[in-house]
């Protein structure tokens, strides 16, 4: 059993988790509470710049993240990040500013403060799989996710570029599968685990997104998955919210619920549907969970 | 001339001399080590410890420049040291064993070659000796015919008085000149008694007899047993008030540098090491023999003096406990 609060993190939810992905935020907080992991939201955090900022103005995108990192530094513990895009931006900032003295000086000038960049930024996955550890995670399971076949979807930002995020092997990551196996689920091998969902084009080129996301869902279905699991609100948006639309375009039927990692792990940890925001999912997961006797 | 001076006035005297631009050299502590060194204030002077190096340094520096060179293109420019720039010095608080060594050194430095470096410094220095009140079992001035109140070598000699202050006795014109220049600080002797002086324990050697033995025993197994354990450092000679060997080296680069004179010691393996690689004194016993011979025979042969004043420094500091007093004592018995 995890001893009381030996793990403590500052927490950067990011904009999505305060908007469209409220259930990710909720389930994260509840899960961490259940696992006795301390989580303190960074006061006054603001947008990391997400996918657009760095396409427009590099200095701006770096400064946004640098400022957030500085704020996070005020709170004890490594910084826990839920959104893969926020994670990518924060890590990229650390990387770029660490490599380039010039950019670092520019940002310092912009923020009018010296930078501290050595704080650790961690995705929730890392916290669960490594800091807490698979063993302790397994011990905390109250309701193993027996019989649930999950297609773990990494998307493109979590592991790439390798030397920036350093999360797992860039070509054959296993961290999601490791976590899910620890809580008793079955993970399916499938081909589109790391294909891009088109997050950048969600609003500008929906056609592209539909094509890309369609292939992902198709592949998950083909591999025999019951559901898909993600660790990013943007991926979630494309796979879950757009699923109906895609089914329409390709005239097919997937009905693949798309969970956040915290929802599935939370479920295994014995949290109720209300605490996990399962009702907020568009593709209704309840029939599946009932069928598998998980609720 | 006989005078008295209080401790306070002595201090005033020294401080005044310093202000006048004279170099006042006296025992003081340097990073914990008692040494004769220039004072910046009379307060630095210590009286209770025998300095680890002797007073000879005031005339015969550990290291001194004698010339410098500089190459300009194909030209070489030599600059001699101007002894006129040597500072006026007052050497204060010199123990009798150290003071007595000064006239001994005079002999060798003004013999066939007049060493202007030594002599100029000597001329510019007034020696203020002070009687010894304590001695340890390494002291043996009495054995070589001196004593804790011996005034040899001093221009002015001080003896501590009971209740503080000193009895002053001039030994030379320099001593008188020193008193005269600051008369107000001295008073007439007031009948205070001097404190009891030290009494070294060694018996007087029969130096004649010792020399005689040395005259006849250049080769003798005794040398081996005396000095096999000598490790060949120069500590004994470097702390000795009477040793005066030196070595001349050029230091610097192709472009510029100095010719310098450094202390040398007969214990060093390089002492008398010929360029050919041959060394007539090719072992510590032979080198140590030279030390004893020089002190108790050669110098006597040449200048009628003994090259040892019994300060006992080499005995205290020899890394391997070679004890010159014991050695001479044993020779004395032979």
């Amino acid at each position, binding site marked *: 059993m995890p001893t009381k609060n030996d793990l403590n993190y500052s927490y950067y939810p990011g904009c999505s988790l305060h908007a469209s992905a409220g259930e990710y935020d909720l389930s994260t907080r509840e899960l961490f509470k259940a696992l006795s992991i301390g989580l303190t939201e960074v006061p006054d955090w603001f947008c990391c710049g997400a996918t657009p900022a760095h396409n427009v103005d590099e200095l701006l995108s770096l400064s946004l993240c640098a400022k957030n990192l500085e704020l996070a530094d005020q709170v004890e513990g490594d910084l826990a990040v839920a959104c893969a895009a926020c994670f990518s931006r924060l890590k990229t900032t650390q990387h770029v500013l660490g490599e380039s003295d010039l950019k670092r000086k520019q940002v310092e000038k912009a923020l009018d403060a010296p930078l501290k960049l050595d704080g650790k930024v961690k995705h929730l996955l890392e916290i669960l799989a490594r800091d807490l550890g698979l063993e302790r995670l397994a011990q905390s399971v109250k309701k193993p996710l027996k019989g649930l076949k999950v297609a773990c979807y990494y998307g493109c930002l979590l592991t790439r570029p*390798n*030397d920036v995020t*350093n999360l797992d*092997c*860039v*070509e*054959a990551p296993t961290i999601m599968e490791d976590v899910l196996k620890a809580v008793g689920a079955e993970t399916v091998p499938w*081909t589109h685990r*790391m*294909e891009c969902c088109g997050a950048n084009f969600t609003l500008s080129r929906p056609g592209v997104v539909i094509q890309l996301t369609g292939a992902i869902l198709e592949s998950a279905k*083909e591999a025999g998955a019951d559901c898909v699991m993600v660790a990013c609100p943007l991926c979630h948006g494309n796979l879950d919210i757009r699923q109906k639309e895609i089914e329409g375009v390709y005239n097919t039927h997937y009905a693949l619920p798309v969970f956040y990692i915290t929802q599935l792990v939370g479920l295994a940890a014995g949290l109720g549907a209300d605490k996990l925001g399962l009702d907020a999912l568009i593709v209704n997961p309840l029939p599946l969970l009932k069928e598998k006797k998980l609720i | 001339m006989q005078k008295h001076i209080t401790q306070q006035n002595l201090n005033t005297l020294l401080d005044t001399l310093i202000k006048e631009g004279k170099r006042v050299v006296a025992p003081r502590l340097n990073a914990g080590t008692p040494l004769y060194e220039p004072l910046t204030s009379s307060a630095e002077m210590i009286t209770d410890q025998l300095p680890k190096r002797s007073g000879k340094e005031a005339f015969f520096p550990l290291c001194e420049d004698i010339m410098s060179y500089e*190459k300009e*293109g*194909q030209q070489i420019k030599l600059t001699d040291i101007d002894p006129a720039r040597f500072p006026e010095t007052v050497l204060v608080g010199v123990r009798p064993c150290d003071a007595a060594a000064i006239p001994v050194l005079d002999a060798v430095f003004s013999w066939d070659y007049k060493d202007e470096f030594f002599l100029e410094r000597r001329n510019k220095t007034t020696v203020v000796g002070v009687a010894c009140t304590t001695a340890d079992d390494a002291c043996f001035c009495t054995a070589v015919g001196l004593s804790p109140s011996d005034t040899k070598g001093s221009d002015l000699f001080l003896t501590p008085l009971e209740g503080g202050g000193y009895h002053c006795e001039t030994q030379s014109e320099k001593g008188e000149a020193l008193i005269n220049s600051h008369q107000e600080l001295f008073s007439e002797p007031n009948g205070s008694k001097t404190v009891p002086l030290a009494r070294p324990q060694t018996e007087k050697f029969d130096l004649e007899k010792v020399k005689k033995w040395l005259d006849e025993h250049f080769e003798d197994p005794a040398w081996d047993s005396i000095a096999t354990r000598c490790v060949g450092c120069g500590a004994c000679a470097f702390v000795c008030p009477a040793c005066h060997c030196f070595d001349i080296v050029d230091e610097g*680069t*192709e*472009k510029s540098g100095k010719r310098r004179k450094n202390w040398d010691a007969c214990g060093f393996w390089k002492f008398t090491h010929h360029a050919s*690689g041959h060394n007539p004194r090719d072992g510590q016993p032979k080198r140590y023999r030279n030390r004893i011979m020089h002190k108790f025979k050669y110098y006597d042969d040449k200048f009628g003096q003994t090259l040892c004043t019994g300060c006992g420094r080499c005995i205290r500091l020899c890394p391997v406990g070679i004890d010159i007093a014991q050695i001479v004592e044993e020779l004395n018995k032979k």
Partner: protein
Amino acid sequence: MSRIGVFICHCGENISRTVDVERVAAQVAKLPGVAFSTDYKYMCSDPGQNLLKKTIQEQKLSHIVVAACSPRMHEKTFRKAVEAAGLNPFLCEMANIREHCSWVHEDKQEATLKAIEIVGMMVERVKKNRVLPTITVPVTKRALIIGGGIAGIQAALDIADCGHEVILVEREPSIGGHMAQLSETFPTLDCSQCIMTPKMVDVINHPKIKLYSYSEIELVEGYIGNFQVTIRRKARSVIEDKCTGCGVCMEKCPVKKIPNKFDCNLGMRPAIYVPFPQAVPNTPVIDRENCIKFKTGKCGLCQKVCGPGAVDYEQEDTLIVEAVGAIVVATGFDLYNITEKPKGSPIKGYGEFGHGKIPDVIDGMTFERLASASGPTGGKILRPSDGKEPKQIVFIQCIGSRAREKGISYCSKVCCMYTAKHTMLYHHKVHDGQAYVFFMDARTPGKSYDEFWRRSIEEEEAVYIRGMVSRLYQKGDKIVVMGSDIAVGVQVEIEADMVVLATAVQPQKGAELLAQKLGISYDKYNFYSEAHAKLRPVECATAGIYLAGACQGPKDIPETVSQASAAAAKVMTLLSKDKLEREPIVARVKESTCVGCFACKKVCAYGAVEEKEIRDRQGNLIKVVAYVNPGVCGGCGTCQATCPSKSVELDGYTDEQIVAMIEAL
């Protein structure tokens, strides 16, 4: 007093543009010991060298400083010139005022002052230079060749034909290397075995070549001209002298289904085997791991059936020592394995290409075996998974190569060409098939190479897609290959029956261990390093050791053979001499002050320091001192920096010389 001559080079304008050479010459002339100083347009040119020689004689110069380019460039040139003028070459030094001065500073004033100082420093140094006599060592007129691929074979034959004895050591049971595995070879499409096997036979029949197959190098001692090499002859379990190569044993061996490495595990072999029918020597070897006799003590069939009684289960490894004067390293290459984490890479293999788990994703060498008439399929292109003929085949180039994240940033050089060859072979054998090639660039610099490549497209109808494959995955019995065509800017997906990966050419596993035994250097990939990329491409920095073939870097056969012959020529040059001269930059011990602490011996990586007893005329031991074997000393000077009493000095870099330079600054 030295009479130093200083020659300042303009290097055309390379130096004089930023360095006021006349001023340098004038300044330097004032330095003590400098008797002559001048500047000249091109010192390295013939007239320049003549000026140098003439002035040495006219001015009776004793030491020379040439201020010009880097000594790495022309030190030899000027030392030779100086020697021709009658001075010892080591009395000449170069001051680098080009690479270290005129080229890196713009300010003329600054550069000029710096040049004056650099030259001044070298003037002081050269004053302390001593005449260094050339060192001679005797030469053992035999050569050792390590590795019996085409490189080793070619070198062995060339040297042996010249009349010198050759020892050829091959790790595998047969010589031949990778070339023996190839089907046909670009750019001419000759059958590889047709041109290879006669050479292999020449080796075994050559009276001057002693072949140790199934053997490895255990230990290398000695130095140029005088190596002692210990060779481990691994226990073959078959006595070579008795075996006639009839092959009955192999027929009778009950174990049959051991994947044959030679066939890239496509075909099977028995426990007693020769790797391929044309093997040289044609003597089988028992694979003790799989032999029943060795596993259980039973069986022994082969021994029973062997007429000449050549099978010997008791055989043990034996060690042989051979004395040689030169060594050629020709250990070749290995292919990159997509399942393994490459050296120095944070990334494990090519996970996106199925981690080597999809049976119909094969590498180029496997394709060679499929295409080879003597291969496991008799030359038919068939899928390993189900033996069907692939109708759509995708070749992907640059697998591992030129991928910095994989720890390999070099180009493997042969893949473009062999992939083109593969498309042709495929098209010749599967007429209705379609070949696609994903490629980054086509690198075809070689005689008739680009023509060959074009033929693949123009005549053999291969479709070349410029772009990389992002992933491939198995879908039913197809392999979906997803990639981009960057020429057109579209994503492509091909459902292929078979995929061939042109995996990177890498050094042999453990190449660095052999290098360490030999004392030669290797690059960060473990390819062996040549002494100079352009001018000494077949020599190692370690004297007497030469390189041939793919162990030095990726190479195709023409290049391999050229280098092998070049290495052979170098060896022959060396062996043509009875005695050898070497640069006298070696350490020397001053016996009079050495105290025999042997700190020098402990730090010498070459093992050049020996213990030497000094005795008086009666033979009594006076002391033991260090002695540096000038033949072995590499000339690093580590011993000197380590010796407390400085009793060992590196000629050419003595303390006096270095201190003179420091003091000049």
